[in-house]
C-alpha cells in the first residue's frame, strides 16, 4: 500500500499540535511522530500530488521524484538517528522538532515556490528556537536577523519572477522563465540565491554558523550540521539545478561564491583549535562543495556529497557535543586521549572523519570520485584542482585531531586527570548503537558503492540521459 506524500508533512504537524495539548506525554508523541515518519517515508507514492483538488499548475502540489525521495528519506532517517542519540535533550522541544520536521519535509517535497518560502520559515523558526539551547541569546538573535533578511530577499526575488510569469508553480516557472531574457532573470535569481544561502550556510550569509554551531550540544549540533543543512542543500539543488537553472553569468557568480565558501571553510577549519569549530567550518566547506556541484548541474555527485557530509557530521557533532558536556572543554588538545576511554565512539568518529576526507574503501571516496569524474568528463580542470587541494587540507586537520584524540601526549594530562570522575561513556547505550550503526553504514556503502548509488538514485543517476527529474515531469505533463 502506498500513501499520499502529504502525510509526511501532515502527521508530524498534527502531532506537534497534539503535543502542546498533552504536554505530559509529549516525549512519547515526539518518538511516535519521528518513528512513523521514518517508516512511512519508504511507502509514499511517487509523482506529483495536488493539494486541495485543484488542477496542478494552479493549486499547490507536492513533487516526489527520485531527487526529493532521496531527500526526504535522508532527512527522516537522520532525524530519527538524532533523536535516538540524544533523546533526553530533545524531549523538551517535542512540538518544535515535530513542526521542524514537517517544515523540512515540506521544503523538499513542495512544488510551489511560495509554499517553499512558508516551509523555509517554519524550519528556520524551529531552528532559532533550538539554537537558544546554546544559552547565548546574542548568537540566536544574530541567526534570526540574518535569517529574516534572507527571507525578505527570497520573497523579493520570488515576487519579481511572479510578476514576469504569473505563476508560483515550479514546473511552470521553469517553462516560463525559459522564454525570459537573462538580464531580467539576473536579479531575482541572485536574490533567491541569497535567501537560500542562509540555511545552506554559503558565504555571504554564513555569519550565524559560528555562533550557533560553536555552542551546540550533542542534539542541536546534529540537527544544525546534519539535518537542517541537508534539507537546505536539497532545496538549493532543486532550485538551482532544476527550477531556475542559472545562465552563464549568474552561474559563474554562484559557482564562484560556492567555491570560495569551500576554500574559506577548509582554511578556517585548519586554523581552529576547538573541535566543534573545526567541524562547523568543515560543514561550511562541504556545503560550498555541494552547492558548486548543484549549480553546475552535477546533481548525483552533489547528492553523494550531501549524504556523506550528513552521516559524517551526525557522528562527529554528537561525539563532539558529548565530549564537551563530559569534559567541559572542546579544545581538542585539552581533550587529548578522550577516545581511549570511549573506544567505540572513537572508532565511529574516526571512520566518519576519514570518510569525509575521502579515504578509499569508505563512502566518501565514492563521493569524491564521482565529483572529480563529473568535472573531468566535462573537461574542467580548475575546479577539481581546488577540490583536491581542499581535500588535502581537510585530511591534514582531521588526522591532526584524530592523533590528538587517540594519543594524549603531554598536553593531554588534563583529560587523564579527569577520568576518575563519573562514568566514562559519553553516550547512552542506544546512542552508541546509533553512532556505530551510522559508521557501519559508511563502511558498507564504501565497500559496495554501486549498491549505495542505486539506493540513492534507483534509475541510474539523478541526472541521467533524460535530464533532471523535474523536467521529466514537464515532458509527462506535455504528453497528457
Amino acid at each position, binding site marked *: 500500500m502506498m500513501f499520499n506524500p502529504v502525510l509526511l508533512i501532515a502527521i508530524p504537524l498534527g502531532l506537534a499540535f497534539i503535543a502542546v495539548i498533552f504536554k505530559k506525554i509529549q516525549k512519547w508523541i515526539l518518538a511516535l511522530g519521528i518513528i512513523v515518519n521514518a517508516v512511512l517515508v519508504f511507502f509514499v507514492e511517487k509523482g506529483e500530488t495536488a493539494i486541495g483538488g485543484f488542477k496542478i499548475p494552479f493549486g499547490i502540489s507536492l513533487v516526489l521524484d527520485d531527487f526529493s525521495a532521496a531527500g526526504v528519506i535522508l532527512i527522516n532517517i537522520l532525524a530519527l538517528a538524532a533523536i535516538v542519540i540524544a533523546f533526553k535533550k530533545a524531549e523538551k522541544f517535542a512540538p518544535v522538532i515535530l513542526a521542524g520536521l514537517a517544515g523540512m519535509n515540506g521544503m523538499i517535497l513542495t512544488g510551489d515556490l511560495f509554499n517553499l518560502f512558508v516551509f523555509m520559515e517554519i524550519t528556520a523558526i524551529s531552528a532559532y528556537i533550538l539554537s*537558544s539551547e546554546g544559552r547565548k541569546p546574542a548568537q*540566536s*538573535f544574530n541567526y534570526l536577523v540574518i535569517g*529574516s533578511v534572507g527571507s525578505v530577499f527570497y520573497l523579493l526575488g520570488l515576487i519579481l519572477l511572479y510578476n514576469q510569469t504569473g505563476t*508560483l508553480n515550479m514546473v511552470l516557472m521553469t517553462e516560463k522563465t525559459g522564454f525570459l531574457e537573462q538580464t531580467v532573470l539576473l536579479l531575482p535569481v541572485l536574490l533567491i540565491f541569497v535567501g537560500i544561502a542562509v540555511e545552506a550556510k554559503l558565504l555571504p550569509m554564513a555569519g550565524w554558523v559560528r555562533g550557533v554551531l560553536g555552542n551546540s550540544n550533542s542534539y542541536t549540533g546534529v540537527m544544525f550540521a546534519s539535518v537542517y543543512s541537508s534539507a537546505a542543500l536539497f532545496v538549493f539543488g532543486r532550485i538551482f539545478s532544476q527550477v531556475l537553472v542559472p545562465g552563464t553569468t549568474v552561474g559563474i557568480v554562484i559557482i564562484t561564491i560556492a567555491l570560495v565558501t569551500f576554500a574559506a571553510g577548509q582554511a578556517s577549519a585548519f586554523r581552529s583549535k576547538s573541535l566543534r569549530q573545526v567541524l562547523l567550518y568543515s560543514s561550511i566547506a562541504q556545503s560550498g562543495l555541494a552547492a558548486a556541484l548543484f549549480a553546475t548541474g552535477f546533481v548525483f555527485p552533489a547528492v553523494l556529497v550531501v549524504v556523506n557530509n550528513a552521516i559524517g557530521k551526525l557522528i562527529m557533532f554528537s561525539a563532539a557535543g558529548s565530549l564537551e558536556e563530559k569534559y567541559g572543554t572542546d579544545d581538542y588538545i585539552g581533550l587529548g586521549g578522550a577516545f581511549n576511554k570511549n573506544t567505540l565512539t572513537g572508532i565511529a568518529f574516526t571512520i566518519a572523519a576519514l570518510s569525509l576526507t575521502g579515504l578509499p574503501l569508505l563512502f566518501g571516496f565514492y563521493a569524491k570520485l564521482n565529483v572529480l569524474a563529473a568535472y573531468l568528463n566535462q573537461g574542467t580542470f580548475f575546479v577539481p584542482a581546488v577540490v583536491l587541494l581542499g581535500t588535502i587540507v581537510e585530511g591534514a586537520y582531521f588526522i591532526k585531531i584524530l592523533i590528538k584524540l587517540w594519543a594524549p601526549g603531554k598536553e593531554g594530562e588534563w583529560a587523564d586527570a579527569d577520568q576518575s570522575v563519573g562514568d566514562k561513556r559519553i553516550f547512552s547505550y542506544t546512542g552508541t548503537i546509533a553512532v556505530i550503526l551510522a559508521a557501519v553504514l559508511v563502511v558498507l556503502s564504501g565497500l559496495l558503492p554501486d549498491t549505495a548509488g542505486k539506493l540513492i538514485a534507483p534509475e541510474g543517476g539523478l541526472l541521467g540521459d533524460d535530464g533532471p527529474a523535474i523536467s521529466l515531469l514537464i515532458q509527462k505533463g506535455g504528453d497528457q
Partner: protein
Amino acid sequence: MIKFASLLLIVIGLYGILSTRNVIKILVGINVMEIGINIFIIAIGFVNGGAAPILSVDNPGSLLKFVDPVAQALVLTSIVIGLGVTALGLVFARKIHKKHGTYDLSEIGGES
C-alpha cells in the same frame, strides 16, 4: 511611485540593520524592510483601474477588472510570519538584556 517608495523602504531598513548594534533598533530595521516588501508585492499585484478583489453588489461579476488576489494572499501570509519572527526576536532581545544588562551588542563582546 509607491513601488519606488517601497523599494526605498527596503534599502532604509537594510541601512537600519547594518548601522546599529542595538538589538531593538535592528528589529525595527527588519520590520521596516518587511513593510517595504509587503507594499512592493501589493504594488506588483495592482492593476490600473482594477477593483478590490471582492464580489459585491457594486462589482457583481467575475469578468470585471480586478487586482491580483494572489499577491494579497501572499502579503497576508508574510505579515503574520513577520509578527511571529518579531515576537521571537524580542524575546531573544529580552534574554540578551537579562544576561548582559544591555541591548547593545557592541558592549557584549565577541565571544558571547
